[in-house]
């Protein structure tokens, strides 16, 4: 052992008193842990069963666990430096599991890893390497929390986090120090006891602090719902969403206790970043506080003391929070669940909201316009009517059917389809997909719209839908499933991306196009490359600082486009400023809502004349202008 002269020193013998003391301390520590953790577990288990929850497919869950928990993929990817520091601490803990078990066993004289045997020797060195990185990691995190102090971690300094960082550091330090002393010495004994005390103090602290995530978050990640922003079905006649404690499901409670308070959700929240009161982290902690104070299975309203209704209705449902969360919390089902509770029982009072709901109860579109306007548009553009013979049903959506800018996008995309010789038709009786009411939590109107559209599509024998609106895509494909089987649907970016080779290559000099990822196309559907590939036929595509998964919302989602003026700064203005700052000459979008939001917002920037085009318009502008709409080719 020339190469590795150091050996982990152990106290060779313990007196009976020491053994008894250790046993007593260990039992106390365990009891203190359970005294807190037991009731938490009970509250989670006592919560309502999740309607529509299935463990299958198990493969997806195993993969999520491997990637997000074991590999710490999300933790590292989304915040590389602190993420890596955290990963080192986590991996250090994993490596230490065996060391800790042996450490305790030594206390009773039944150590199973000998520092002198080659297995033990190897493992202790292995663990020592992790101890070093773990110590460095926790030191880094300590510096970040107490010296750098990013605002996501909250205004108040968390001294308990500091103390725990100290304990973790002490665990590593006492372990490493034991390599520099010899067996049976006082020093070895002292180190053993220090290490033991650090462990026994740490254990009961876990359920009392955010370090509860050590225990819960692996389970939370494993049990997370299948798919992004998965809104669970309502179960039975008395389920109206998250109204009171009795509506909190096991998953919601588990997630509420899993929160590690890292604030990534808040860091990326467009509402919080523009001066609204919504703070997704506080929403989750509000649910946790409710569970602690009142518990599940109660009739006390969830909105009020613990969470504010105003905050809940400031959410654009952009999903940045849910995407960012490293411990598997699904913010959107909770936020939308709270909205459902307020809207389905009529406790949410909002003039704009009521107007939207009443309008969609009576009419066919979210804009409250007459369907005759849509007919006129169809006539003017000479769109063929879908009759079952065409390949695609071109779904206009409210924006595509009524909004002047949205109509331009639809017309441009229709020209692209004509150019490609794809047959398509539009529907006369199309209604709003129900996206805004779904996100606002109005299950009554959403059900009416979904059912009436599904019936109409079945009658029209529609097999494939293509649309310019990512909100329509999402709602039809995922949300309608609660009420039937929707036809296959894709976004026009996906459609056009298949034909990029046939789209004309534009040589417009050095046109720089900054592409804004729509939330409902990106985070909701995982489509990032297709719109870029399409836009690339028209110029050089560049990304704004926040792009792809980290794209910053335009402010229109979650029904907010219909809810009147925002408080604070406008989300769209912040984003428009960011897009302008890239120096691009054109803003490329792939969602009619983003388009309409930026149209106004760009005017407020110092480049009000900046070009704003949907990817379909980028393509269509180079097409020969005189081609005739092909009929049922």
């Amino acid at each position, binding site marked *: 052992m020339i190469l590795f002269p150091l050996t982990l020193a152990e106290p060779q013998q313990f007196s009976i008193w020491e053994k008894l003391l250790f046993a007593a301390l260990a039992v106390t520590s365990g009891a203190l842990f359970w005294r807190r953790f037991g009731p938490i577990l009970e509250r989670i288990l006592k919560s309502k069963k999740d309607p529509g929850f299935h463990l299958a497919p198990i493969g997806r869950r195993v993969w999520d666990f491997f990637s997000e928990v074991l590999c710490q993929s999300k933790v590292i990817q989304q915040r590389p430096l602190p993420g890596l520091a955290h990963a080192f601490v986590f991996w250090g803990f994993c490596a230490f599991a065996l060391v800790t078990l042996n450490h305790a066993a030594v206390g009773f004289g039944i150590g199973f890893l000998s520092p002198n045997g080659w297995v033990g020797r190897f493992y202790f060195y292995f663990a020592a390497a992790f101890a070093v990185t773990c110590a460095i990691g926790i030191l880094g995190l300590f510096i970040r929390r107490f010296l750098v102090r990013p605002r996501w971690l909250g205004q108040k300094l968390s001294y308990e986090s500091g103390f725990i960082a100290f304990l973790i550091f002490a665990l590593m330090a006492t372990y490493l120090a034991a390599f520099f002393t010899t067996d049976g010495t006082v020093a070895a004994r002292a180190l053993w006891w220090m290490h033991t005390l650090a462990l026994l103090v740490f254990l009961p602290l876990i359920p009392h602090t955010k370090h509860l995530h050590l225990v819960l978050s692996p389970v939370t990640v494993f049990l997370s719902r299948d798919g992004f922003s998965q809104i669970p079905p309502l179960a039975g006649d008395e389920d109206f969403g998250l109204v009171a404690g009795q509506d909190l499901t096991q998953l919601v409670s588990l997630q509420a206790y899993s929160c590690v308070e890292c604030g990534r959700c808040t860091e990326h929240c467009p509402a919080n970043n523009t001066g609204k009161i919504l703070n997704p982290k506080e929403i989750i902690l509000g649910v946790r506080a409710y569970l602690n104070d009142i518990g599940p299975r109660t009739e006390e309203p969830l909105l009020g003391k613990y969470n504010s209704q105003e905050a809940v209705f400031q959410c654009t449902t952009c999903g940045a929070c849910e995407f960012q969360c490293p411990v598997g919390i699904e913010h959107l089902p909770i936020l939308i669940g709270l909205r459902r509770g307020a809207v389905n029982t009529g406790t949410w009072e909002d003039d*704009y909201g009521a*107007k939207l709901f009443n309008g969609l109860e009576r009419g066919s579109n979210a*804009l*409250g*316009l*007459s369907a*005759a*306007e849509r007919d006129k548009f169809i006539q003017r553009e000479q769109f063929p009517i879908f009759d079952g013979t065409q390949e695609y049903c071109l779904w206009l959506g409210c*924006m595509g059917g*009524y*909004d*002047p*800018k*949205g109509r331009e996008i639809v017309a441009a995309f229709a020209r692209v389809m004509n150019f490609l010789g794809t047959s398509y038709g539009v529907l006369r009786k199309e209604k709003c997909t129900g996206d805004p009411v779904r996100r606002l939590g109005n299950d009554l109107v959403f059900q009416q719209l979904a059912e009436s559209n599904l019936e109409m599509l079945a009658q029209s024998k529609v097999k494939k839908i293509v649309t310019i609106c990512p909100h329509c895509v999402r709602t039809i494909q995922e949300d309608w499933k609660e009420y039937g089987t929707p036809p296959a649907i894709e976004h026009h970016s996906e459609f056009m991306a298949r034909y990029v080779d046939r789209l004309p290559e534009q040589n417009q000099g050095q046109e720089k196009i900054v592409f804004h990822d729509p939330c409902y196309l990106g985070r909701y559907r995982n489509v990032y490359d297709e719109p870029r590939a399409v836009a690339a036929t028209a110029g050089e595509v560049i990304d704004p600082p926040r792009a792809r998964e980290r794209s910053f919302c335009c402010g229109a989602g979650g029904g907010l*486009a*219909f809810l*009147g*003026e925002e408080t604070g700064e406008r989300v769209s203005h912040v984003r428009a400023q960011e897009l302008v700052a890239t120096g691009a000459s054109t803003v490329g979008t792939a969602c009619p809502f983003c388009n*309409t939001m930026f*149209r*106004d917002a760009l*005017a*407020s920037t110092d480049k009000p004349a900046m070009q704003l085009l949907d990817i379909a318009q980028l393509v269509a502008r180079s097409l020969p202008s005189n081609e005739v709409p092909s009929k049922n080719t």
Partner: protein
Amino acid sequence: MSGIVVVLEERDGRVGRISWEALAAAQHLGKQTGEPVTAVAIGANTEAQANEAAAKSVAAVIRVEHDLLTRYTPDGFTVALQQLIEKESPSYVVFPHTYQVRDYAPALAARIGQVLVSDVVAIADGPVFTRQLLQGRLTGTYRHSGKGPCFVSVQAGAFRADAVEAGTAQISTFPPAIEPAQIRTKPGEPFRGSAQTVDLGSAPLIVSVGRGIKEADNLPIVQELAAALGAELAASRPICDNGWLPMERQVGSSGQTVSPKLYLAVGISGAIQHLVGMKGSQCIVAINKDAEAPIFEVADYGIVGDLFEVVPALTEAVKSAK
């Protein structure tokens, strides 16, 4: 039973324009049926109205006068006109389709066992009455059957007031018997919608200004147009965002929803957020230099041109037309 009775409605002491339109309709009906037209002025002091009506081509003018008719009440008017109709026993009773007529004519008809054919837009031989159905999406033709007078109210603008033929007629007075107890409702003094706060929702005329105005300093030219028209001034969001006009004047999805008789959009391109706030307007006029602006799609009348030239010209034209 013969003759056509047309019931005139008073506006500021005179016969209102829509009443002349009703008279034109009655004359039209008179030509079709060959029946004489009698104009009826009703109130406490109907002399001026009766004199105006007597200068038109009517067979007679009747003043239905009573102190209890000083202020309109549905009970008073119903009691008085019931007596007149029973005495005259006309074949047709024609009204202008005003808010006041809508308030009592259905009850008057029902009291006589009849039904009012309301809001008629055309009268063809037969006579066949045309009305709008489903808010103008369809038209329906109605015929009156059975005994008793046929009650008809005529939509504003359906007949031309200037088509009323001139003539001379005798004026007579009919004093109805009305007991105070028969009048069960007590009407108050008419008042304007809240004057302090801007109530775009109830404004009959609105001039709305958009980004085309370029600077706050240019606003006076639009304000002058609004003043000449007697219209409220409104704006699209960017104008209010800039603080050039107060937020309560904003029309659109994040502002107010309006449905005036006339909505005159100046320099507004017509983003959807704006359109949803004013689409219910009866008549929309757009002035914009961009002929492709979406606002022209919803407009009834459009002027493509520089608003800094068009608006002052329009202000002059409005002033000289008054």
